[in-house]
């Protein structure tokens, strides 16, 4: 054969060999796809449970809405986005509207405009918890006998119940007198597929609560059966599940049920889970930064390598904490309302949770480094020093503090509130038992026990994202007069029936959800500032 043809055939043979590209390509590293998850789970069955953790990852995410907003917002950090917004909407947790921190739109209620970033983030974050929970509920057989599966399924139901409990309180007035009013779309594992094509209308408030109750009942049932113990406090334990249901009955003002659940939660927490109320000694210095504390029932666990932490400043301690590095150093952080601060007895150990009206720390509360840090940052009077920095390192830029979602103290206060509402037992005894032993040795409860409980809740859970729920539930409205707001433009007196208190469904949801119309997100009028007192 001619050289030419030898060469040619060699050429063609090699071409045929090299040719034909591999077209089935998947990413490796940061992202995984369903196919890879299945493969991994086959090789290592432990990995199959990782989707459960997605529920709790959704509580703590770095800029989960970047693509939805088309913007990178430094307060786009998962559930703490809501905590920041709810705190700033209220009248107990005060910050300066200085264009530098991230609370301005919440202070002015501009966050209610339906194309605002906060409006979208609050909505999306709650439904992304629902999404992750639905995936878990759909994946596990509800009749499972396996302890571990029962535990994981309970996480799906419990977290979903929690998400809808929050949604129900943000998007409509409180249950007691708004049962028939439209609330939010209820998407579960059962209608998730249908909602893709047909959208999902808003359910009535009462129907949302039916779903919450169903989910929490199921979670309690599964956790009661399961022998599996949670690895850490990001997961919902049996006491947490009772605690969540106690909260729900509290919101519904079903006091005997609330009492029973609170008691059950306390009993399981203390006996089985070895939890206890924060001691008076421990309350006498900054804390609330680690889920390992014995008074935490449930929390958001934050790790050093989480995106929110490695971002440096896009995290809860940066915005809220005074003793670590972040936004608060430069924007003045958060102060307690002057009115509320005045209500705290000087013997109460919690008086130290804030700088005094001179801007000084209560003697013995802060250590030297903390005092120096406070001075360096020129914190104003009444600035919070309740929350310790991560690992107790003053000024740390590693903002990996855990974030509390539920504490044992709350169960005692729910119990007391239920008792004060005639569900049986002695509210006075419960309240004094808690406050006297753990917060103020000289304490005696006043006669107006119910208002005293409300007050104790505001003090005890200040900064933990619960105050707003009480504003809605107890119909106090928002009255910022005399609270010490630095901006005259932030001083409002908002009636408890004012629609501005309700969050609006975002414009994008109205446009994309076929079952909704613009009437589902009516316009609101922003509050007008009033004279301060």
């Amino acid at each position, binding site marked *: 054969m001619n050289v030419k043809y030898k060469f040619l055939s060699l050429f063609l043979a090699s071409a045929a060999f090299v040719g034909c590209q591999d077209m089935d390509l998947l990413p490796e590293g940061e992202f995984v796809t369903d196919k890879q998850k299945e493969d991994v789970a086959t090789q290592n069955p432990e990995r199959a449970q990782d989707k459960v*953790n997605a529920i709790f990852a959704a509580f703590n995410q770095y800029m989960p809405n970047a693509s939805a907003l088309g913007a990178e917002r430094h307060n786009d950090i998962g559930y703490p986005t809501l905590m920041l917004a709810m705190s700033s909407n209220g009248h107990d947790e005060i910050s300066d509207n200085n264009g530098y921190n991230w609370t301005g739109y919440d202070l002015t209620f501009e966050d209610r*405009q339906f194309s605002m970033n906060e409006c979208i983030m609050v909505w999306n974050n709650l439904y992304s918890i629902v*999404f992750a929970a639905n995936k878990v509920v759909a994946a596990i057989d509800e009749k499972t006998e396996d302890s571990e599966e029962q535990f994981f399924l309970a996480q799906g139901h419990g977290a979903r119940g929690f998400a809808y409990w929050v949604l129900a309180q943000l998007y409509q007035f409180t249950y007691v007198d708004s049962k028939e009013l439209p609330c939010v779309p209820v998407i579960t594992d059962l209608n998730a597929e249908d909602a893709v094509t047909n959208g999902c209308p808003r359910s009535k408030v009462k129907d949302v609560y039916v779903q919450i109750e169903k989910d929490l009942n199921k979670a309690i049932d599964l956790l009661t059966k399961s022998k599996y113990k949670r690895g850490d406090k990001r997961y919902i334990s049996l006491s947490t599940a009772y605690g969540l249901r106690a909260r729900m009955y509290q919101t519904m003002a079903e006091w005997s049920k609330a009492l029973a659940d609170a008691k059950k939660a306390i009993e399981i927490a203390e006996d089985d889970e070895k939890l206890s109320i924060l001691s008076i000694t421990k309350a006498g210095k900054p804390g609330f930064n680690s889920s390992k504390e014995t008074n935490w029932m449930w929390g958001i666990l934050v790790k050093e*390598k989480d995106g929110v932490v490695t971002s440096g400043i896009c995290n809860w301690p940066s915005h809220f904490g005074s003793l670590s590095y972040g936004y608060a150093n430069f924007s003045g952080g958060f102060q307690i309302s002057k009115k509320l601060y005045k209500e705290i007895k000087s013997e109460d150990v919690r008086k130290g949770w804030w700088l005094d009206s001179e801007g000084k720390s209560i003697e013995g509360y802060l250590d030297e480094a903390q005092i120096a840090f406070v001075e360096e940052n020129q914190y104003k009077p009444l600035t919070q020093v309740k929350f310790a920095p991560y690992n107790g390192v003053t000024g740390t830029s590693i903002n990996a503090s855990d974030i509390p979602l539920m504490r044992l103290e709350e169960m005692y206060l729910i119990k007391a509130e239920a008792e004060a509402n005639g569900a049986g037992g002695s509210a006075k005894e419960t309240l004094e038992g808690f406050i006297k032993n753990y917060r103020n040795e000289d304490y005696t409860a006043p006669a107006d026990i119910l208002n005293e409980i409300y007050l104790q809740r505001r003090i005890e859970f200040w900064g933990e994202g619960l105050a707003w729920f009480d504003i809605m539930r107890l119909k106090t409205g928002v009255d910022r007069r005399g609270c010490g707001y630095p901006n005259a433009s932030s001083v409002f007196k908002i009636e408890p029936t004012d629609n501005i208190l309700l969050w609006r469904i975002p414009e994008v949801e109205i446009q994309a959800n076929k079952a909704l119309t613009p009437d589902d997100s009516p316009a609101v009028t922003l509050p007008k500032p009033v004279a301060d007192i």
Partner: protein
Amino acid sequence: MKTQEVKIKPVVNVVLHSDTELLDEVVVTAYGTSTKGSFTGSAAVMKADKIEKRLVSNVSNALAGSVAGVQILSDNGQPGESAKVRIRGVGSINAGTDPLYVVDGVPYDGDLSSISSSDIESMTVLKDAASTALYGARGANGIIMITTKKGKSGKARVNFDAKWGVNSRAIKNYDVLTSPKNYLETAYQAIYNGGVNQLEMTPEQAHVYANNTLVGNSEGGLGYNIYTVPTGQTLIGSNGLLNPNATLGYSDDDYYYTPDNWADETFSNKLRQEYNLNISGGNEKSTFYMAFGYLDDKGVIENSGFTRINGRLKADYEVTEWLKVGGNVSFANSKSMYPGEQTNSSSSGNAFFIANNMAPVYPMYVRDTEGNIMTNNGRLVYDYGDGKSTKMKRSFMSIANPAGDLIYNKTEYLRDAINSNWFAEITPIKGLTISARFGMNIDNTRYNDLGNAFMGQSAEYGGNAEQAALRTFGFDQQYVANYQFAYNEVNHFDITAGYDGYTYQYTELGANGQSLYDPNSYYISNVIDNIIASGKKDVYSTEGIFARVNYSYNDTYFGNVSYRRDASSRFAPGNRWGNFWAASAAWMISNEEFMKDVEWVNMLKLKASFGQQGNDDILYPGGAYEGYNRSYKNLYPWLDIYKLSGADGVFSDGTLAYKGNPDLTWETSTSYNVGVDFAFFSNSLNGTIEYFGRRSGNMLYNKPTAATLGYSSIPMNVGSMTNSGVEIDLTYDIFNNKTLKWDVNLNATFIKNRINELHPDLKGVLIDGDRIFEEGESMYRMYLVKYAGVNPENGEALYWAKDKDGKEYKTAEYSDAESSNKVATQDLLPTVYGGFGTSVEFWGFDASVQLSYQLGGKIYDTGYRRMMHGGASSFAGQNWHKDIYNAWTPENTNTDVPRMNAQDKYTNSTSDRWLTSSNYLSLNNITIGYTLPSDIVRKIAIERLRVYFTADNVGIISARKGLDPRQSYTSATTAIYTPIRTISGGISLTF
């Protein structure tokens, strides 16, 4: 035929040059070349002589105004950065709109800045389906074929070119306030008005309140005091004017405060220098080209320079009569100092944003009580406005001082790029060639980032360091057979068939941490805290088979049919393959018998084409990106993508990052092109007129979904869109003789965009934030609240809202207007865009001017909007445009600028008020040169010597000073790395 003088050599090779050069001009096409005469598609060529005039560090920028149908958008002037090239409009809402670059026949995904523009022989822009169909898969946005220089047979030639120049800002800021006095008085007015109007104060109370607030850092205050006022007096008098006893400059016990000019301190004129050397030669069996170049472009801000050393070797060799081989290897080593955030509009690190928007009341440096700028171990101390640098807290961008960051921080990309290309071509029988071509592009980039430990944000945690290794690998293999034969002399056939497989891989490994030991070292072991590392791989591939038949009859009738079948790994296996075909024809009328007598017509060709192309380039929703390489491309849109996270042994793999859609498939565009090419009057007037259309169907789109589903968008093939228009490209030689050559050229593109069809769910309209996409309308419309001017009674900004009955009314409540009455604006696209220029040569002198323009469009001027605020706290400390002097006051009621009021929230809210004409005329290039007479230079053994002077990117005239409408089709800001003007002198030698 022109006569050629040939020196007597043992073997005489006479190359005959046709004088119908116009027809024989080579057009580089897919998998081969064609001549302009027989080419049936639409293509435009930009050649080395034009490219070399432009002082560009990235060759894409040279296309501005030079080629009909091509529009250049540039929203980042960082040296070395690519421009956005749009060929015949934009065919998709959410898919990539960049053209495919093909370098010497091989698709190129590397960085264009790795190719030295002096190595480029030509850039051919392929615009219609007939030209691009053979790259069917990725050709929907047009193709830019880059052909590198090649040696020619004959005497060896050595070219050397050197130029030195100065960079400056081509676009200056808007007309902003420059006097601290005027700024303070205006800010006082805003705070005072807020006190009186909203906070129910008496004028006296408001006066005190405004004076107190002005130096505080909330409620519209500035946070700084820069005037010394006698004790007991106020800074601003009750007449609203600065206290005449106040003196500029204020000292507390520790520091002295006086404003600096941030723009002057941030921007400076910097050097650009470039040297290129190439040696080429060849004989009848081989050619050889070798080049070496060095470029140093320092930008206009500190530490943003681009340096490149590049070399290239290109050779081919005819081994035997039937075997030819060749290779082309280029290597580029570049260092791009690339400070991040220079295009991130609201970033505290963006020096342009901050210098352009900083009120003229803030110091940039920390000064001691004597007024001297303080130093710390020899380093200037910058004022970060954080209450720590000094005692004052700046309201605008506290903890930011990008000028300081630019000096003490470092961000750099060190790139080694190898682009290589080998081929072997066998000719087993006459007319048949079979070739294999392998193209390999490797880019290894090191990213290093240092956040300084001395001052500013990063100093708070002792500085930070980041290192990353980014590797891009592209490999292309092509096997092509081509058979050419003639039948009966007049029937010419040219048949091509082949296979093309392309694979792309990107891997990265990065780590970052805090607390620097050595404050100047970014190596990761130099930090001790918060160290985290990440690594990942992305992959993509395409493959396809293709065939093409070209036929011509008697050089008068031409026909072409092509077909390609392509697969992309971005789609599910069942939806992976797409079929793309094209057909075209041309009629060379001037070759007909009946045209013989029409002497003024030298060439007249009618051509038409029709065909399809594909696009698989779906992007992440909402402008999201991933990885160190900031990739916007979603390479796995058919799959649900979950983010893997976790720590301490607990994984989470269920957080949905991007929703996928297995039904997703090719976006297909169908194009047609009808045109005439002509040359009249002894070839002195020549040009092309074309009518074109491109209909994209099954558009790739990220459809927004209800967030209640757990995700906020899903990729889909949605609807169709058409871009159509007319292109004109004319060149006229006014003189063309031995002593004087003078030509003028003009190109114009008239283009219309129309959405034909959207997803049926959308019922004809899709609203995405402030954009609206509606069937029957252009995609370039915004969806905005209508501005209703100023309430003459009280000066509030008014907007049009609608009541329950749909009746419009004016209101100061922006949110009412926003929820009841957002409306679509007119089409923002310009009616026509293009370029024109002229060049002249006489007695050794040469001069040319090149301009580009755009007319008849609108742009949303966000830069101006930001400068027209009412003094509200969210804008406190930001500068005003001088138009603010026309704000409403009780005395000035006939104005459309609302009152100054720090409590007003809607003074400059998003509305159609900010739509501005996007007309512009930009002067891209002026070049003047002189070539020394050859009889002089030959004496010093030089064949040719030219000295020249070039001004590149000279300036722009637009509707408003500071507005650069070239940034995008819809909006413009001041928050980007400004375009650079370079004025250079140079020398070019050939020997």
